[in-house]
């Protein structure tokens, strides 16, 4: 039970910790500090609780595909609200109000997506009274692993910025976003909304997705042990957009992100 709880932490909450590590490093300016993320996190948690309460009813909507459609909407929202951020955002001393709002919406959507899955798990375990101690121990260890990983990861990202290796951060950030958004392929295919086809690669011989490494790689880059061609295409496109986008439309982004007239 303890191991299972830890695995659920790695699967559901580690990506959230990783997102906050990135944001902690990528968004540092006069008008939008890390403290702005706290209200967003609280709102996200409230949204998760709300979703958790209606999830059983929602699961029966659209011939049983209600939850998947909602998850896809959340993932698309968070991707479209966060893809324009990368290390070039650090050059913006002040962020426009619209930009700040968009980032907060993106974070909210991601928090709801990840935390709601976790609440369902908690609900199940705390209904089984005999498991409470084991679950609590698992939660403490899981939280410890996520917090340690996140702290170390933030430190590495900050070091990379100091060493002027920003391109590495842009690449792994884009891989992270691509890894998250490509989960829509699984959600849509499992309720028959898209046709995916057979896997074209089998990477399970190298790293099993169910292993600890598999979970960490999944959280960092969206690792998939048997990806289909559609998965690979969507992954490539969604990687290219946040990686190249802010540079390609640099002027447009700068105008959009930074508003000189916006109050501090």
């Amino acid at each position, binding site marked *: 039970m303890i191991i*299972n709880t830890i695995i*659920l932490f790695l699967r559901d909450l580690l990506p959230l910790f990783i997102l906050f590590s990135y944001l902690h490093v990528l968004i540092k300016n006069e008008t939008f500090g890390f403290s702005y993320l706290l209200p967003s996190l609280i709102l996200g948690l409230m949204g998760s609780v709300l979703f958790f309460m209606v*999830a*059983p009813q929602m*699961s*029966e909507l659209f*011939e*049983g*595909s209600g*939850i*998947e459609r909602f998850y896809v909407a959340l993932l698309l929202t968070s991707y479209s609200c966060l893809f324009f951020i990368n290390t070039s955002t650090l050059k913006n001393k002040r962020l426009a109000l619209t930009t700040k709002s968009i980032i907060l919406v993106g974070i909210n959507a991601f928090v709801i997506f990840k935390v709601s*899955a976790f609440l*369902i*798990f908690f*609900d*199940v*375990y705390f*209904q*089984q009274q005999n498991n409470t101690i084991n679950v609590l121990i698992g939660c403490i260890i899981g939280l410890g692993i996520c917090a340690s990983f996140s702290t170390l990861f933030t430190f590495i990202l900050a070091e990379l910025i100091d060493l002027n290796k920003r391109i590495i951060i842009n690449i792994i950030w884009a891989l992270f976003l691509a890894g998250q958004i490509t989960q829509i392929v*699984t959600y849509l*295919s*499992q*309720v*028959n*909304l*898209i*046709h995916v*086809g*057979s*896997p074209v690669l089998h990477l399970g011989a190298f790293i*099993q*997705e*169910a292993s600890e490494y*598999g979970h960490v790689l999944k959280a960092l880059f969206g690792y*998939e*042990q*048997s990806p289909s061609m559609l998965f690979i295409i969507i992954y490539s496109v969604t990687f290219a957009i946040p990686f190249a986008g802010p540079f390609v439309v640099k002027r447009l982004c700068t105008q959009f992100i930074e508003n000189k007239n916006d109050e501090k």
Partner: protein
Amino acid sequence: MNVQGKKHTFYLSITLLITSIYSYTVNAQHKVYYLTIKHHIFTPATLTIPANEKVKIIIENKDDVAEEFDSFDLNREKVIFAGKKSTLYVGPLPAGQYQYFGEFHPNTARGRIIVVENKP
């Protein structure tokens, strides 16, 4: 063809494309298989399905807590809430064995899907 005509052709093509994808998805007839969760155990524990074919699996949770159907082999994860039914599609898959388990009760809720070349 003038600009207006090209526009109409473009919209018509898009409509036809969407309609064909929709028809393919909606009208395709899939074999249906049933799984039941009771006392945190999947019944039947082994499902045999045909290779290279997409199939529909209806999972009914008869327990009073939620369970998550999870499979790394099939790349599927779906929560089935207490007392609810849920639908899941798998495949097309090559012949072989694919393990699945209940994420919330992995010690008892375990099963496998056997994919065979000859239709069962």
